[in-house]
């Protein structure tokens, strides 16, 4: 499993270009923000080119300057605080930084269009879809109403929206997330732009929908010869769709080159580390995730020297000086003094220490046992309380002490509701939850209180899971006071310090407020808060999905380390299949409120039985361009059915490739198909 591999079928795919001048040329771009804390240099000396019809991916962690680069090209930066002191952006022969506002306005939407991350908020909720698509056509191309209408229908058809005429009159809330993103793409395409900038276009979407949208964008860019800049942090997406990759780190280009080169022969330690710190579906699970230690630098202090040096394991004396972006043997560029040494194979990312320490259940007696759990939410409000959404239906599973049970599924599948039911934040409609033999529903108040201590939670969003008005010390120390876990104030303080050190934070952090910490640090505080209760079981609800790749690895390792240390059991709820595989012992796959499949991690990923699991595994791109570009797109048709009109029979029958008439009639029970391998499908 070595990153430095032999060159693979050299230049598998050169982008098709007109061999003319590049479409977009960004030269030495500097963008700064003036803030109360000083000047933040968000982009420093970024240069790259985009040719016609080419797909370029900009990858980097949050704060690396990828979105600011895009906004600089569009000149959509906030007027008061942002400025571009240096640099040149040439688009199609015109220097964008020299255009006046009116000329720039005419260019936006017409020659360059942008697709944003959040399809839920980037469409105006009070205007019809038709109006929003025809708007740029009328403004930029001076079309008449009838012409624009016709073009809008054509565009909606192009992005795969069924019945385009009928849907023009509808409002955004009548579309699903995936459909809205298709509408956004249709708006982006409306004026036949030469360049589309997509800022995290699929981050908010489910993996099966993500595959549909990206495939669509790629095909359209091919067909219409539109250049595409995809800004993302998902390396799998990059591997599958990008011709060229630009890796940003702390406002600067760390490395750029063809997708093959960057993935197979990275020439910058940061790219090497980044590629190794993602849990991957296509490789055997290692003992421990390799991570890039530390945090990205603060962009306010204009430090000299290589930006990555403080986190780089190959740092040498010369790294105190800023390395130039120099050409490498792979035809790309790297901002590393030692890229030639990396090329010769002298430097490889050190393998993670320790052999595979497999977490295992420590007892045959289940710690938590869930039986026939159902949760219905009333909808419609007011007088019509009879209609319900069946968020969770007939879910049963056990969790044993010391093990991690993964719970995967797309948004709306009920996985978070299951977590909330276990935490007793919601009351189940039907079914039972027994913790260490005590039924939660019939437990006395005193039992419930002890139980609450035993079951803790780590939330997804490290920004909203900590009370902004309390210091870290107060947050972590609160359970100690409330439950009198330690006798006095001094012991409490000492315990808080100990807890913080346990999760890799310094004890001085206790005095800080959450907003003064980074995302990863906040998540550590959340973990420390859960540990303060001395729990035996923690529900991790998407605990790492809001974090950057390199931080995600650190947190996963921390969770595993704590599990071994304290014998904790986890219910690990996530949508990222690779992460779930890495951390779980057994995996439950949910779809539309029901369990589809339960199996051992390795069995599930090696030989999934349920068609939904297969589809899910297929749709997830892996960070390897050779594998990704070699395989055919296997797309799942359709979208999640409406919760108000659930399908009869098997809930998956509307999208299932092997569904038959019987599937539309019978609800398949969850049966043991092989020892320890359960699936709810009549076809297997």
């Amino acid at each position, binding site marked *: 499993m070595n990153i430095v591999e032999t060159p693979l079928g050299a230049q598998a795919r050169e982008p098709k270009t007109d061999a003319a001048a590049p479409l977009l040329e960004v030269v030495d771009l500097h963008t700064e923000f003036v803030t*109360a*804390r000083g000047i933040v240099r968000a982009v420093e000396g970024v240069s790259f080119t985009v040719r016609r019809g080419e797909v370029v991916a900009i990858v980097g962690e949050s704060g690396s300057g990828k979105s600011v680069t895009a906004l600089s090209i569009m000149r959509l930066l906030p007027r008061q605080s942002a400025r571009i002191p240096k640099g040149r952006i040439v688009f199609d022969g015109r220097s964008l930084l020299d255009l006046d506002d009116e000329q720039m306005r005419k260019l936006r939407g017409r020659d360059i269009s942008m697709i944003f991350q959040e399809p839920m908020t980037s469409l105006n909720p009070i205007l019809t879809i038709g109006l929003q698509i025809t708007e740029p056509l009328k403004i930029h191309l001076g079309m008449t109403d009838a012409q624009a209408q016709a073009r809008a229908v054509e565009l909606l058809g192009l992005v795969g929206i069924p019945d385009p005429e009928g849907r023009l009159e509808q409002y955004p809330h009548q579309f699903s997330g995936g459909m809205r993103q298709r509408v956004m793409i249709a708006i982006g395409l409306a004026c036949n732009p030469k360049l589309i900038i997509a800022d995290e276009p699929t981050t908010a979407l489910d993996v099966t929908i993500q595959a549909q949208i990206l495939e669509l964008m790629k095909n359209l860019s091919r067909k219409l010869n539109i250049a595409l800049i995809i800004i993302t942090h998902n390396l799998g997406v990059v591997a599958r769709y990008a011709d060229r990759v630009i890796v940003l780190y702390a406002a600067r280009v760390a490395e750029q080159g063809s997708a093959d080169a960057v993935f197979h022969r990275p020439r910058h330690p940061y790219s090497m580390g980044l590629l190794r710190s993602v849990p991957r579906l296509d490789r055997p699970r290692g003992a421990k995730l390799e*991570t890039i*230690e*530390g*945090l990205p630098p603060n962009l306010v202090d204009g430090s000299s020297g290589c930006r990555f040096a*403080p*986190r780089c394991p190959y740092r040498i004396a010369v790294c105190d000086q800023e390395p130039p972006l120099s050409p490498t043997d792979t035809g790309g560029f790297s901002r590393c003094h030692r890229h030639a040494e990396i090329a010769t194979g002298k430097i490889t990312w050190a393998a993670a220490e320790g052999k595979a320490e497999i977490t295992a259940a420590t007892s045959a007696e289940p710690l938590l046992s869930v039986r026939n759990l159902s949760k219905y939410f009333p909808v419609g409000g007011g007088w019509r309380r009879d209609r319900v959404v069946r968020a969770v239906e007939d879910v049963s599973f056990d969790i044993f002490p010391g093990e991690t049970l993964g719970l995967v599924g797309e948004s709306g599948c009920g996985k978070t509701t299951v977590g*909330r039911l276990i*935490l*007793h*934040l919601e009351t189940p409609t039907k079914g039972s939850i027994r913790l260490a033999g005590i039924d939660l529903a019939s437990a006395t108040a005193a039992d*419930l*209180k002890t139980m*609450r*201590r035993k*079951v*803790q*939670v780590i*939330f*997804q*969003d490290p920004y*909203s*899971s*900590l*009370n*902004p*008005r*309390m*210091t870290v010390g107060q947050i972590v120390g*609160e*359970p100690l006071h*409330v439950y009198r876990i330690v006798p006095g104030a001094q012991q409490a303080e000492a315990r808080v310090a100990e807890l913080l*050190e*346990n999760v*890799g*934070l*310094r004890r*001085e*952090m206790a*005095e*800080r*407020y959450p*907003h*003064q910490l980074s995302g990863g640090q906040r998540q550590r505080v*959340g973990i420390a*808060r859960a540990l303060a*209760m001395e729990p035996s079981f923690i529900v991790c609800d998407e605990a790492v999905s809001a974090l950057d790749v390199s931080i995600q690895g*650190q947190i996963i*390792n*921390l969770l595993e*380390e704590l599990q071994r240390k304290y014998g904790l059991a986890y219910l690990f709820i996530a949508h990222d299949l690779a992460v779930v595989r890495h951390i779980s012992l057994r995996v439950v796959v949910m779809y539309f409120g029901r369990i589809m499949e339960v199996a051992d991690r390795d069995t599930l990923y090696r030989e999934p039985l349920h068609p939904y699991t297969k589809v899910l595994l297929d749709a997830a791109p892996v960070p390897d361009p050779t594998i990704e570009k070699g395989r055919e797109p296997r797309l799942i048709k359709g979208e999640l059915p409406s919760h108000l009109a659930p399908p009869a029979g098997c809930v998956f029958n509307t999208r299932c490739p092997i569904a038959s008439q019987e599937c539309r009639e019978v609800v398949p029970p969850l049966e043991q198909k092989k020892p320890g391998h359960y699936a709810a499908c009549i076809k297997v």
Partner: protein
Amino acid sequence: MTIALPAVPAPRSREPNLLLDFSRQQPLGAVSFVIICAMMFAGVFSNLVAPYDPLTIDFASILGAPSWEHWCGTDAYGRDICSRLIFGSRTALVIGFTSSFVGSTLGAVLGVASAYFGGKIDDWIQRFVDILLAFPLIVLALVVVAALRKFVVGGVDVNLIFAIAIPIIPRVARVVRAAALSVRVMPYVDAARAAGYTDTRIIFRHMAPNVVAPYLIMLTAFIAQAILAEASLSFLGLGVAEPTAAWGLMLSGNAADFYREAPWMILFPGAAISLAVFAFNLFGDSLRDYLDPRFRM
């Protein structure tokens, strides 16, 4: 094996002098604080500060223009307006501030509780709020004053305070509930519930501090309303009665009949009310920013 983190600079230690820290971060707040302090000083030490007795009638100087003897002129009974303003600040503070504070605080607690519990409790509280909101502030205050027995403590009409506070409750409860609803769904509230904390603890420790911003804005905005309401009630003979010095009374009394000949009769009390309202609003804003750790450097 723990994960090493790079060295981070220790956070700046807390300023020893809270007032100094506040003035440095919120200079405008400091200015308004000075005005409020001046008002309080004038209210508490009225007898020492005021140049004349506010109740002494002097027919020799009826409707006197501002002069060196009477800085703000005199009213229709020849009483010194400046002295009456100084004594009036006592009434304004006691009635205005207290009733606004009582009303806003009760309203905030009701609003947060309503949002936190939801369901039936929320429904009942909100319908009750709807009923109270159906009456104009002054009408509701009138009803309360008329319904309660007169109850005077230390020269202050407690009834009046409640009469003005009660109509404030539903208005604040509505706004605070809206803010609390968005706090209610924050994961940190779920985390507190998952930790098994009591409802009281969650409401006061986790939710209330996060709705302080709308609370402070409502509180300071209602001080102005309360001073005016007190004036209106006084005018109707249900609030502070003549000859007690009160700003509202000075505005609404016979000043209306003489404002052409003696504009100072309404000018100075009006300015005093405006200044007080302005100072409280500004102070509330600054306090909100100062108390929010996210705005702290």
